[in-house]
């Protein structure tokens, strides 16, 4: 039991601190933004330290809680990534909360609870654990999407997110129950053994298909992506930033663990499904983004497209494929948080930097911020020497190595398409003078700016010297458990 608790310590700690932040928020009223924000960041940092200590004291091959929970390298990588994401989001939200005078306590607590859920998903090797982790994350995110109640659009977004999210959870659960019915187990290792030993019946295959649909829904892949643009556009931008990286990365952790781990024996049945979904996602995400004038919608479609790229790594499979997805998630997180940070920084006519035209002439007025956005756009488009390029390189190398050249060709052609809409923003910032239209003014938001700076530096450092980050991802990737 003691070993169990040590392995779970990071989650326990974060959940406890989240409750502490919640209570502190209730006790201190709404004025103490700085204090609560600092508390939340410190809590996340402390959890990171705990994670490091727990990882040191735990055998990465061991199973805990009746074999349901592991703390392998894969889980550690993702947990560290989630903690980083949460900390960046808390910092990003600080100025927004303060400026609009929203209560910080519940907000911060919900971000932390969502992080607990994501961490649980990354560590679960039992479908029940993964599912409850997912629900914890999803429920917290639904509430966060509707948290800023004066934003009319955000009500609609929250409702849509909730209904569609609940439906996808339902599909997922249905798939899980069919798989349980067919194999009699929820444990991934046992599942793999059972599936490998006997020819799976139709109910197992239907279960896998439903599971795939549910997961594709969660990572916002075509054709289960329709909710994304509306929700991303409507939700308050800090939450959009969070939704586009945290839950997505967590969904990929779960996708990798379940499909490459437990369902590996059925790879022949699902790999084409995921491959086709990846191709469609890249094509549709990028093509649809071309025509968007609303920056948040455009970034929503861009995030759909990026889920497609990451799926290429999943299809490639093997240590190299998993490794590349892990690395890509890191790259995508820092880039996307930075890009949304920039959107938060803009405020035009009372609502955050909505249309592409609002960006006209920004480079002249705010050269540093515009340069950061340039980096993020290039990184999302996959142009060297940014992190996005290295991320794609590894995905593509893994896929070519696994024989999926056609998928890589689709991916690179779509990267070329994507550059068109990423450059539209650059074009507005640098090439247009912003005459006529009232140019967007930047609001004072010191913490948001610091996050952008940090992300910008990370994008360049990972792009120029990716070796240590890759080594970290590679050390982790071996451990999806069953490779």
């Amino acid at each position, binding site marked *: 039991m003691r070993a169990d608790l040590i392995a779970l310590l990071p989650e326990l700690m974060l959940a406890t601190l989240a409750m502490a932040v919640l209570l502190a928020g209730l006790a201190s009223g709404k004025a103490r933004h700085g204090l609560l924000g600092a508390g939340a960041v410190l809590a996340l940092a402390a959890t990171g330290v705990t994670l490091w200590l727990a990882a040191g004291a735990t055998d990465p091959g061991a199973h805990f809680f009746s074999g349901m929970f592991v703390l392998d390298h894969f889980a550690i990588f993702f947990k560290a990534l989630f903690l980083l994401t949460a900390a960046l989001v808390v910092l990003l939200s600080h100025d927004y909360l303060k400026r609009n005078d929203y209560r910080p306590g519940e907000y911060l607590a919900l971000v932390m609870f969502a992080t607990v859920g994501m961490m649980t998903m990354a560590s679960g090797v039992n479908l029940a654990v993964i599912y409850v982790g997912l629900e914890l994350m999803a429920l917290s995110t639904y509430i966060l999407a509707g948290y800023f109640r004066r934003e009319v659009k955000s009500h609609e977004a929250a409702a849509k997110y909730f209904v569609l999210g609940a439906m996808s959870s339902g599909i997922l659960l249905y798939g899980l129950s069919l798989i349980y019915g067919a194999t009699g187990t929820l444990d991934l290792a046992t599942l793999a053994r059972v599936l490998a030993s006997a020819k799976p019946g139709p109910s197992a295959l239907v279960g896998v298909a439903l599971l795939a649909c549910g997961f594709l829904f969660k990572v916002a892949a075509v054709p289960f992506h329709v909710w994304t643009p509306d929700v991303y556009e409507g939700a308050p931008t800090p939450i959009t930033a969070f939704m586009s990286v945290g839950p997505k990365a967590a969904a990929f952790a779960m996708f990798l663990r379940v499909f490459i781990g437990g369902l590996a024996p059925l790879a022949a049945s699902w790999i084409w499904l995921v491959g086709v979904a990846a191709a469609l996602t890249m094509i549709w995400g990028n093509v649809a983004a071309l025509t968007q004038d609303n920056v948040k919608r455009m970034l929503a479609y861009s995030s759909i497209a990026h889920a497609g790229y990451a799926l290429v790594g999943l299809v490639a499979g093997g240590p190299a494929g998993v490794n590349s997805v892990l690395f890509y998630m890191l790259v995508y997180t820092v880039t996307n948080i930075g890009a949304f940070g920039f959107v938060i920084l803009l405020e035009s006519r009372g609502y955050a930097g909505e249309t592409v035209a609002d960006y006209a002439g920004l480079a002249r007025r705010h*050269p540093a911020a515009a340069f950061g956005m340039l980096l993020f756009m*290039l990184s999302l488009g996959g*142009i*060297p*020497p940014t992190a996005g*390029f290295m991320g794609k*390189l590894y995905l*593509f*190398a893994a896929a*070519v*190595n696994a024989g999926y*050249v056609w998928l*890589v*060709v689709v991916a*690179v*052609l779509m*990267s*070329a398409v994507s*550059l*068109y809409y990423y*450059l539209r923003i*650059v*074009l507005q910032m*640098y*090439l247009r003078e912003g005459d006529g239209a009232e140019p967007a003014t930047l609001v004072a938001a010191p913490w948001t700016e610091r996050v952008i700076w940090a992300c910008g530096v990370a994008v360049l450092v990972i792009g120029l010297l*990716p*070796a240590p980050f*890759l*080594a970290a991802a*590679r050390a982790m990737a071996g451990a999806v458990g069953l490779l």
Partner: protein
Amino acid sequence: MPTDFLLSAIVLTPGVVGLLLLATPREAVRLQRWVSLLASVATLVFAAVAWSRIDPANASFQFVEARTWLPSLGIGYRLGMDGISLVLVLLTALLQPIVFISSWRSIHDKVKGYVVAMLLLETGVLGAFLATDMFLFYVFWELMLVPMYFIIGVWGGERRIYAAVKFVLFTLAGSLLMLVAIIYLSFVFHSQTGTWSFAYEDMLRASVPMGQGFWHSPQMLLFAAFALAFAIKVPIFPLHTWLPDAHTEAPTGGSIILAGVLLKLGTYGLLRFNRPLFPEAWQRATPLFLTLAVIGIVYGALVAWAQKDMKKLVAYSSVTHMGFIVLGLFAGTLTSTQGALLQMVNHGLSTGALFLLVGVVYDRRHTRMIEDFGGLAAVMPLYTGAFLIATLSSIGLPGLNGFVGEFLILTGAFPRHPAVVAVAATGVVLGAVYMLSLVRRVFWNPLAIEANRSLPDLTWREVLAFAPLAFFMVWIGVHPGTFLSLSEAAVRRLIGG
């Protein structure tokens, strides 16, 4: 001077200085102009050192630098120089200071951004010429994209945004497929040897299976992916449509670099990568590329003849000249390939000079329409002389550089492809026709327009920018052996002759 870091110094000096200039205040225009000029001159000095130290008889890469970068995939920071890259590096390093001098006054808005973009662009170009790692080559290749986008898009003409976006999308569509091909090539090497590498020398040892047909032939597909990226850059007909737009809209400095250097990367890539890496596919594709080259020569010349805009005329003449270079490369003999390499330099010099000179009158009159000029010979004698030299170099007058290049290409190609040479030769004639008619209309028609009577002649700064170009035009025309001997051993190695 030790040569351990010579190539890094050549490649990185402009880029590092450019990034440092980024930190200077916007108003420090004088500082930015001088520092950027000095950085490009320093790069030229380093290139000259390489020229003096290189052993032309040695066909392999020299001054080699190799450092691991991404060890897991065998990607390294590998630089090396042979005779071919030396010649092109010299051209690049020579043109860059000229660009800065020529835009000293004409670029007065956002000077910092301009010089930074130019310096980063130079690093990209030099890096692509000197990289001996496929991956590093690709990184430098893509590095050129963004600065050029800004150069066209920020300091360009009326339709600059359209031209900039078109330039980027054309280039990117080709180059991304090349990335897939590079990865696949490395994968072939991995499956044949068991180790990962992206080093150029290793790739030469990988033998890509030829297979059957096109879609089932890995070598043909890889050849096509590389060739597409390079053909767009050259540009080979019918992929040339981005070129007139980009040239016309780009500022003078951008046009000089674009025509003088960037286009050369396409032909350099064909020679450096397609030729030795995919020899069978090269043989199979030769008829196609010869045909396209000849079409490009004639088509470019005819379209150039019909232009009313001087800059567009020069831009279409580039299509013709690049057609000759492609012809020389695919004709495949030592003579024609050497001629193609020399012609790359010649085109850089003569077209660079022409763009420079068109820019001179544009700065004074803000028009480039041929009909807006006439009789300038009387008003601007110095300018007329300079323009005449550039024109004669461009149309291949014996004694100037263009003649040597075209002569080598055509004589080298004649034994194998007489019909092709016969058609291409009409391109030479047409070139003379449209260029000389341009000269006649601009310089010798009656001086009808009042505004032209008071045009000032070349300033000392413009003379300074033009003089080195003229100097090398004459040098190559009179004694081409200086440069041909530099690259002969390396070319022999690449074409296996």
